[in-house]
């Protein structure tokens, strides 16, 4: 936990320093007429102070934990999470090219396969039916403007 506290504090410190560096490029104005940079600079210093306090507390705490607690509950869980995130990113990259229906089908195949050990025939059937259902519900029934891609749906 101490390592996590230090990592989190440093992340916030970096965020504060980056925001201060960018904010100082903006017109700050003065107390009578604050400019666009005024509030971000104030916030930058607030985050800096809080993150520095958190870092100081974590460093002063010392090495009290007998063994570090892993960030993920298991290696399987970690793998599932990263694959799910990759599937999300893949969906975002492909949907404009392949269209909603096909991309949804591929997404479902990947994620359902990730989460269960279904036989391929069942997996493809479930993915196909679900993607058609979602397409009918969201595009045809609710008329949400979904990406069509190069195949038109």
């Amino acid at each position, binding site marked *: 936990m101490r390592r996590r506290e230090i990592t989190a504090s440093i992340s916030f410190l970096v965020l504060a320093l980056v925001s201060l560096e960018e904010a100082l490029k903006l017109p700050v104005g003065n107390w009578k007429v604050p400019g666009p940079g005024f509030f971000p600079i104030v916030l930058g210093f607030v985050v800096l102070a*809080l993150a520095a306090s958190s870092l100081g507390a974590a460093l002063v705490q010392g090495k009290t934990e007998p063994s570090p607690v892993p960030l993920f*509950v298991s290696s399987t869980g970690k793998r599932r999470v990263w694959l799910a995130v990759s599937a999300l990113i893949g969906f975002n990259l492909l949907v404009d090219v392949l269209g909603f229906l096909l991309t949804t089908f591929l997404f479902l195949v990947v994620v359902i396969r990730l989460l269960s050990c279904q036989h391929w025939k069942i997996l493809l059937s479930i993915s196909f039916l679900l993607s058609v259902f979602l397409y009918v519900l969201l595009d045809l029934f609710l008329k*949400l403007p979904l990406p069509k891609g190069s195949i038109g749906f």
Partner: protein
Amino acid sequence: MDILANVMLGFSVAIEPANLLLCFSGVLLGTLVGVLPGLGPVAAISLLLPLTFKISAAGAIIMLAGIYYGAMYGGSTTSILMNIPGEAASIITCIDGYKMARQGRAGPALGIAAFGSFIAGTFGVLGLTFLAPWLGRAALRFGPPEYLALMLLGLTLVAYLSRGSVLKAFMMAAAGLWVGTVGSDPITGHQRFSYGSVTLMDGIGIVPVAMGMFGIAEVLENIEKEVTGEIYQARIKGLFPNLKDWAESFGAIVRGTILGFFVGLLPGPSAAIAAFSSYAMEKRLSKNPQSFGQGAIAGVAGPESANNAATAGAFIPLLSLGIPANLVMALLMGALMVHGVQPGPLFISEHPDLFFAVITSMYIGNIVLLFLNLPLIGLWVRVLKTPYFLLSPVVLLLCLTGAYTLNNNLAEVAVMIAFGVIGFFLRKFAFDGTPFLVALVLGPTLENNLRQSLIIARGDLSIFVSRPLSMVLILAAGFLLLDSAFSWIRNRKYRPVIDEA
């Protein structure tokens, strides 16, 4: 009589067939999502919010309000039948509710939760009807310094009462305020932190952030841990509590209603605080306190009434002051702003039809909730059994679709995914996302009021303490900050927000 006339006006809008259908749909969809393990009202609203973009502002808030209390009730169902709370306010229901289910009394537990929620919700909406317009009129006297002070107090309270470390909560609040500065400066139009990106020029939207941090992150967490629960398997019967159940619950419902309504006015996780406080109060007042934790029906009736009353109470600062008291209200505020409606003191005077339509729809929604959910218990139990490998990808797809349909922009989807990953890791590092999102919602208005105050006072900071109301609010916020600082220095360890009852 003026209020009566406005209530009749509100009914005339709320009972329009389209709005009735939206109320019904909201309650049904909210309960459906709320029943799903691992998803609560925040996820429900985040997921279903994009469905409201194509309808009127009145219809949107009617539907979203229905989704909110539908999801709260759905969360109770999961607590009682699966011992998995849908959200913080349902944690306490697990204790006695699930025990009752194990004793073959799931029906009365679900029934008293529904009736208690209905009674408390109805009285809560009555309170909202009379208190909100009064508070809105009082708030018309607020100037920029008072607004700034009120927002600072609200934000401080949300951070003070959030889960985990207070220091981390304040870091999240400050970070949320900073993220709110991305985009055009509200006064000069100067671009800030947009780096030439067209998407960032409009600022970072509340909806993709909310869907990411509370929808995507929740699902990722459930995917990692493989959320499952043992579902109460026996047939549920006898949904109507008997006379003995009513005798044991009636006092708890009344006390929970009053407690919950006033707690709901306060910023912070009011529904959860109300539920926990009600449980503690009932246990203390009970002639048989050792029955609590063993299936005491008052342990379900009181908290469920309190959290529903708090739900109604939380609408008051949102609609009359434009201050979201908690995360769900922040989402609702974001939804209203998407529809071009700014909640606040002028909201009631400029949009009385909308305000009273929302209130009257809440009356109707409470009735719909009661008559819809009890007969459909069997359906919700079947929904509960949906395998998670089917549920998670559908939820993720709804999030992806929702983020895209905001502005037909894939960049918004990217923002949502990014905040989903950030939100997932923030949970790992024990950071609560609530102060971040509330700050993101309040940030632009807070900055506006700060700069206007300084312009009015020509840079003299004493404006915030020379005006009585502003001074009181600033002092209250300052007191909380000092208390937080001293607590942190003294403890420097995890401080849970709710002590065990």
